[in-house]
């Protein structure tokens, strides 16, 4: 292995180790909330089933599909950056960006719908006969967990936009692919979080 390729391989390993360390902290960040979900769902199964039934199944499923497809584009963009195909990388990054924004738009539509139906925890929360007072816990967890996920998505969208600009300028390419790897890892991680949120909030009680 030449000196240059050995240096590049070392850079890649360092990047991967650093990013996975950060993602481990993110797993624990979300993990605490997932643990709270398990505890409360075990304690109030009927309330969580009622809460799940009031979610919009098709918007949730559509959003999951959007994120999965965006991950495909991010993976292709990463490969394109390594191959020096900057235009392809740029196109795939813009596609992922558009899908990410689409996800957030659908989330906004959902939140608006919940607000209209008085499903936001607080003074105006409307109790249903099926769920009872514990249904508010379901919605508290829903807004906390999906809200935190949406905040991560916003940061991800910003990172992808920055990466697209860097690729366009030629600052990220086969000689320096690390930024694409880092942004890609972050994006796929946020996708993985939603992969677990979907069955916990959109499928119970149907």
């Amino acid at each position, binding site marked *: 292995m030449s000196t240059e390729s050995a240096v590049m391989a070392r850079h890649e390993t360092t990047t991967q*180790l650093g990013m996975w360390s950060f993602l*481990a902290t993110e797993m624990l960040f979300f993990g605490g909330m997932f643990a709270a979900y398990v*505890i409360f769902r075990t304690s109030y199964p009927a309330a969580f089933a009622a809460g799940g039934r009031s979610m919009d199944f098709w918007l949730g499923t559509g959003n999951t599909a959007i994120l999965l497809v965006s991950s*495909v584009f991010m993976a292709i963009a990463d490969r394109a950056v390594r191959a020096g195909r900057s235009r392809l990388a740029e196109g795939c990054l813009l596609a992922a960006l558009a899908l990410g924004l689409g996800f957030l738009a659908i989330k906004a539509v959902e939140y608006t719908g919940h607000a209209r139906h008085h499903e936001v925890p607080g003074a105006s929360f409307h109790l249903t006969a099926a769920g009872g007072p514990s249904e508010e816990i379901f919605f508290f967890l829903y807004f906390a967990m999906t809200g935190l996920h949406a905040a991560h998505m916003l940061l991800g969208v910003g990172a992808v936009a920055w990466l697209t600009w860097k690729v366009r300028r030629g600052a990220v390419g086969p000689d320096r692919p690390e930024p694409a790897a880092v942004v890609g890892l972050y994006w*796929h991680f946020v996708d993985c979080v939603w992969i677990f949120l979907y069955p916990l909030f959109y499928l119970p009680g*149907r």
Partner: protein
Amino acid sequence: MKPSPVPCRDLIAIGGILIGLLALSALTTLLPPTSWRTALGLLIAAAKAAMVVWFFMRLKHQHGLVRVFSSAGVVWLCFLAVLLASDYLTR
């Protein structure tokens, strides 16, 4: 000179499998509402996440130390789960 094509059929195929697993996840709502249905939904989610991690996050191409780092978060989550379970199951 025409740029060399970037092979991405495998990534698109993985994406297709992920969408198929999503459809399977949605179809679990047709099963009777038992705890097994929830477990099945989470199992499908775990399979999807594993594919994203292995293929899209390129863990397949990384060497041992990176894989150890990548599993650190999961290990600590297991500690959290065991400690919580030991509390709640013994109440």
